[in-house]
């Protein structure tokens, strides 16, 4: 333990290179997408990125074991914030997702994703089971996850709820679950999906799924988002239309272009070349996260890095698949590109946590 201070390894911070690059891409695309009147959005996002980078530095210096030990209080605070959202939140886009703290709009459901990973990893590391957890063992960790998921569903925000569930159970899956339990969970999932179609999903959510399956059926209605983003991406061609030249996003055919559809802005202006670069950067981050998980010195570190990797894979995969018309329109932000302070902060905290795991992998 005495060597701990000397194990500080600057090379682990090289992961900041792709992250800062992604943030730069996010800001470039954002500046193309917004009008002059919306310029404050740009400065706000830049500020959030600055705060986020600072948080990476701070969190990476903290011991992840200490952070994980705080996961239950952290989860309780997040649940409290989610409750506040429901009671006194700010509405937008048909649901209630934000709480205003002065000029800042905080979206606690983003923090809930990290809380879910932290809690699941912490619990799994402290309650090992030979041969994997059985159904009864999973009740305790599930309760915390389901409280968060339930609160987010009430907003309602299906995409985020699924993201919390996937990240949390992703950790439990890596930690080890009895095969039979795994199958029954999968079975429950299918039944749950059918059940929610008939009893839970709001009409707009059902419409999105229908629109995804056949976007051309009603090009100005349900499928509008998907068709317009595909037109924008396709318009970019191989080399792109050039920075600031994207007609589709700039002329505002693209919906929500500076939130969930930011990838199409980038792909239109920088073409297939720019899109490939972006995908390679994300691939690099996923590989770095995988290596961090594999090389972690203890179960907790391994599960934390694995959960965060699942979180990133899910967000990158679903968001880009949605923009390219391969997935229904669900509100999962693209890490470091989508406008939004809470998501930026959450992702930076997560990266900082994994750097912390990397930094401490040689310590015994």
């Amino acid at each position, binding site marked *: 333990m005495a060597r701990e201070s000397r194990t500080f390894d600057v090379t682990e911070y090289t992961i900041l290179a792709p992250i800062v690059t992604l943030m730069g891409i996010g800001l470039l695309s954002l500046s193309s997408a917004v009008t002059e009147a919306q310029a404050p959005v740009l400065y706000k996002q830049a500020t959030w990125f600055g705060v986020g980078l600072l948080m990476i530095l701070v969190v990476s210096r903290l011991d992840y*074991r200490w952070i994980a030990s705080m996961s239950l209080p952290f989860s309780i605070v997040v649940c409290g914030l989610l409750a506040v959202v429901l009671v006194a939140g700010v509405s937008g886009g048909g649901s209630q997702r934000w709480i205003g703290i002065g000029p800042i709009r905080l979206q606690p459901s983003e923090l809930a994703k990290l809380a879910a990973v932290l809690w699941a990893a912490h619990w*799994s*590391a*402290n*309650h*090992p089971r*030979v041969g994997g957890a059985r159904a009864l063992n999973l009740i305790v960790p599930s309760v915390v996850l389901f409280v968060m998921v339930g609160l987010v569903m009430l907003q309602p925000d299906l995409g985020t709820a699924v993201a919390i569930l996937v990240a949390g159970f*992703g950790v439990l*899956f*890596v*930690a*080890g679950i009895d095969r039979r339990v795994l199958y029954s969970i999968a079975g429950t999932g299918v039944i749950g999906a059918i059940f929610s179609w008939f009893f839970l999903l709001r009409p707009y959510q059902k419409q999105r799924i229908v629109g995804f399956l056949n976007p051309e059926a009603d090009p100005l209605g349900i499928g509008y988002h998907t068709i317009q983003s*595909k*037109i*924008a*991406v*396709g*318009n*970019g*061609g*191989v080399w792109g239309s050039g920075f600031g030249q994207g*007609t*589709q996003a700039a*002329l*505002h*055919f693209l919906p929500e272009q500076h939130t969930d559809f930011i990838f199409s802005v980038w*792909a239109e202006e920088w*073409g*297939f070349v720019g*899109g*490939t670069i972006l*995908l390679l950067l*994300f*691939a690099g981050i*996923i*590989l770095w*996260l*995988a290596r961090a*998980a*594999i090389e972690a010195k*203890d*179960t*907790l570190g*391994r*599960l934390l890095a*694995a959960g965060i*990797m*699942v979180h*990133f*894979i899910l967000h*990158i*995969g679903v968001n*880009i*698949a949605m923009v*390219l018309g*391969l997935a229904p329109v669900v509100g999962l932000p693209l890490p470091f590109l989508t406008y939004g302070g809470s998501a930026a902060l959450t992702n930076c905290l997560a990266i900082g946590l994994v750097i912390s795991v990397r930094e401490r992998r040689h310590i015994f």
Partner: protein
Amino acid sequence: MSPADFIDPLQAGRQVERIRRLAFAGLLTLSVLLVRLFMIQVLEGDQFHRRASLQSSRVRQVLPERGEILDRNGDLLVGNQPGLRLRYFPDRGGDPDSTIEFIQANVPLAPADLPDLVRSVARTRPYRPETIIKRMSRDTLARISAHSFEHPELEIQTAPLRRYPHGPLAPHLFGYLGEVNDGELGERKHVGLFAPGDVIGKQGVELTYDLLLFGTKGVEKFRVDASGRVQELIEATPARPGWDLRLTLDLETQRAAEAAMEGLRGAVAAIDPENGDVLALVSHPDFDPELFIGGINHEDWRVLREDPGHPLIYRPLTGMYPPGSTYKPLTAWAAMEEGVITPDEEIYCPGQYRLGRRTFRCWRAGGHGKVDMRRALKESCDTYFYEVGRRLGIERLAQYGRLAGFGRKTGIDLENEKGGLVPDPAWKQRLGREPWQEGETIIAAIGQGSVLVTPLQLARFYAFIANGGHLVAPRVRAGFEHTDRPAVTEPVALPVSTVVPASDVWLDVIRDALEAVVHEPRGTGGWSRIRGIRVAGKTGTAQVVRQDKREEELAENLRDHAWFAAYAPADKARIAVAVVVENGGHGGDAAAPVARKVMEAYLR
């Protein structure tokens, strides 16, 4: 160290294996996305590029100014006036009810069916704009444009409106304008460029020469944003105004003809015997073309349709009447050509004619005594023509009737012309009626029975007599011209007149007799005399044999139709005219004065 790190050494390896699988799944997902990106951007890039440029630009059509209509001397007959209309674009958003409320509050005299129209358009075809107010005042314009920002779904457009400086003059001939309907759009597909909302000709020359009068649309291409706001003009092609149509019509003759027909029901057709130029075409009663400017309203339309005088029917072209005695020159010509009679042979008229067991009356009960051809025509002896008709037989009579242009359309450049009827045994057989009777032959020889002609056909037949056997093709178009462009006199091939092998000797006999009709004592057409000009003509009195007549009309419509057909000057005719006055009684009294006024107006 957490408990997990001690309890099961194998656990770590299994966890790492799962992490590897998850990472692999993540990279696989990214690969799939890369392939998808390649498909959209590289393989289908061109297709999406086209769609992108398509939706970021809007093309607006610029309407050309419609050509004017002039008479043969260049006097303006139909002009233009600026008009405004209100169009509704349901796809630009807005609640139909608030649109209706706004229009009703700001447009005085908004049509009663407006709410239904707006709602049905918004529901059934929201992507297609619809004209909801066809003619707007400047005041209304000011009120609506003051609120245009709150109602982007409403757009004020200039609308081409016609102007009729001479009031109700030849309204059937000019026709009227109206918005193109779906059927017409389909017909005009091959012409291109026609779009819903375009105003086109619906009747008369406005219809026949619509494409030339319409002009060529201009195009303005704008770059727009997603909400349709115009960003910049990319390119513009100016509209080319339509050609002005110069008609063969003579304004003064037309006016005189309409004045002469005032208060009468019937028709006048006057043409130039040399080339078929239509000098006047009158149908009375008529209507005020002002009613049709910007679209006729339902009430006015109902009144016109239900008027017992049938003002919408264009009688000179579509009115079919038995020609009566005006047909006798045809019988005379056929008989002389066929050699069944010479001009000098006399036939005794005791006032009736016996054929088998039936007796046919001459109009003059006391009889004409012995008559030759000249006197038979001059005094319109029926008995003479019964005998001539019997000698000719129906086949030859019908054959000459068709040679003289009866029984088929004249081919005038106006829609809906009727062809009349030259009856013969084959026609009766086609209809499945009983066999042809000889009695019908001799009735046809005096222009009664089933013979039906239009006033235009009859005018052409008299031109045929005057010009020595040329069956001219009547036309109302003289040519097209434009102030900026050289005049086009014959942009479309005109039907040429047909030369019929008619012997001038026989036609001379008829011409001489027709002159006697007007100028000699006992002639039936004395009422058509013009001081200083020799006129040749023939009266006619047609029994009313309308096949579609209703019982309640019979009483007031029992009187005969009065005919007069003529040409003048007799030696070198410049005008041929046919006049029919429905239920006017005897042709010499009712129709001859009208013909005189028409010829006088043209020849003076």
